[in-house]
């Protein structure tokens, strides 16, 4: 063993500490579930723990290694941590129990998993710092041609928008919703498919760079953000205006708020599907337009004719 190959303490001490905290939480939720405070895990998951704390750690370590001028702004670091924290909170804290027992609370959970959480994470511009700090084998895997080739078709704007809306529709299709709420494996698949698809979608839409290096131009990304509004409104409206109970799962396993009737729960849940995602899309559109403007300032002549049309459109909005 040469001293040069010895890992510096931060390399192993932090993962070891995170693993130890995870093991303690795992032990506590298994043996003492009744004594767990509401903000600690209700049903501990190693996948959720590792999937939250490791990217957070890599992100901040990666930033420390970057040249100060290239680091994401402090507000971006804060929203990244907030987004990761929100995703972990709805998947792990006692909120999970609430979401399992009230339709509208499960819809809020999915707004966080598919919209708000990945949206905030995407604003953190986490790709570079995380790749800089993650272990080399994992980094090679993430950057491998196979992974990129597998993701490329999913990031084609029309496919990405279709996938985004399709997943919302799939998990809300009544028989699928029943099976995925009552079953543990399908519940896991449902929640993580929402998180991963949300990341794929919002990281692309909110990428500040022009195309290339981004895959799609600003115009296509603005269209993605706006295009997903209408199918989600249709799904939300269908649920809101349903006169019968579409989701009997909550009647079998019981609602957290017994005073809220099944149809009212369903109505509020439909509103959650309908309104917050539409608002997020509008915010995303404004961000895409501001990115376009910044890119326009950097390069006087946009090469993409569609971007030029978007610029003309944005000029009317912004008065520039």
């Amino acid at each position, binding site marked *: 063993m040469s001293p040069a190959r010895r890992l510096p303490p931060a390399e192993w001490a932090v993962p070891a500490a995170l693993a130890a905290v995870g093991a303690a939480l795992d032990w506590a939720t298994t043996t003492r579930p009744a004594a767990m405070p509401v903000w600690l895990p209700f049903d501990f998951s190693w996948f959720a723990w590792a999937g939250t704390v490791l990217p957070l750690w890599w992100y901040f370590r990666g930033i420390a290694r970057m040249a100060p001028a290239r680091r994401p702004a402090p507000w971006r670091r804060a929203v990244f941590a907030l987004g990761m924290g929100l995703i972990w909170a709805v998947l792990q804290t006692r909120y999970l129990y609430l979401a399992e027992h009230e339709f509208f609370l499960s819809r809020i959970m999915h707004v966080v998993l598919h919209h708000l959480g990945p949206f905030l994470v995407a604003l953190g511009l986490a790709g570079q710092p995380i790749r800089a700090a993650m272990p080399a084998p994992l980094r090679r895997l993430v950057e491998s041609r196979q992974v990129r080739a597998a993701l490329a078709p999913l990031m084609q704007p029309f496919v990405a928008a279709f996938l985004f809306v399709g997943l919302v529709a799939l998990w809300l299709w009544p028989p699928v919703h029943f099976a995925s709420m*009552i079953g543990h494996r399908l519940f896991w698949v449902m929640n993580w498919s929402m998180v991963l698809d949300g990341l794929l979608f919002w990281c692309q839409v909110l990428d500040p760079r022009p195309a290339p290096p981004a895959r799609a131009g600003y115009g296509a990304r603005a269209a993605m953000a706006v295009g997903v509004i209408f199918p989600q409104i249709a799904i939300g409206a269908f649920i809101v205006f349903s006169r019968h109970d579409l989701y009997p799962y909550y009647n079998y396993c019981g609602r957290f708020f017994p005073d809220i009737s099944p149809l009212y729960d369903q109505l509020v849940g439909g509103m959650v599907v309908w309104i917050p995602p539409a608002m997020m899309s509008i915010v995303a559109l404004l961000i895409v337009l501001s990115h376009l403007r910044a890119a326009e300032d950097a390069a006087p002549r946009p090469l993409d004719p569609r971007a030029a049309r978007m610029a003309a459109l944005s000029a009317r909005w912004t008065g520039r």
Partner: protein
Amino acid sequence: MKPLRPLLLALALLTTAASPWHDISVRGEVPALGFAATDAASGHTVTAADFRGRIVLLYLGYTHCPDVCPLTLHNISVVLRRLGKAAAGVRVLFVTVDPHRDTVPVLRRYVALFGPDFVGLRPDANQLARLARRYRLAYAVDPGGHGHPYTVTHSAAVYVFDRTGAARLLIPSLASTTPDLPGVTADLRRLLRGQTAEGWFGWLARWV
């Protein structure tokens, strides 16, 4: 909304018509029978392994519930009577969500009122939390005081597990005044015969 209704109805029919069960098949989705609690009859801790080889019905309740808990247990006892001799292969687990008031002697005398196939289980707080989490069941005990009554709420669901301990059915109707007793009886008879037919969705879900 109107043109979508026939479509929705067709979907509902498709998913129910494909199922040979009167109750809701949860096979492959809900975890196998798994719990630990104090058996009211013996005072010893029992686990799911003690019920292998029997069809198990699992229901959460509490003894100070004079209306709907006895109604549910009574409906189950009617089903067991309809099963005749085959009922010997069935055990009904009544798990109290109010272990504070439902002591072992109270629970033992309570379940004995409904028949020999009824088993009273008194979990401790952690055992109860684990069981409820596993089966997505909800319960709340508010000890009250200051003029507020002691109130208990709990899920109405009855789960059915087969001889191997695998979760098979969810019975939604037993707590109601309009129980589908012939349907529940037919489903239990089917499970007692060991038939494993299931809806296409349950089959699909096992592979996801």
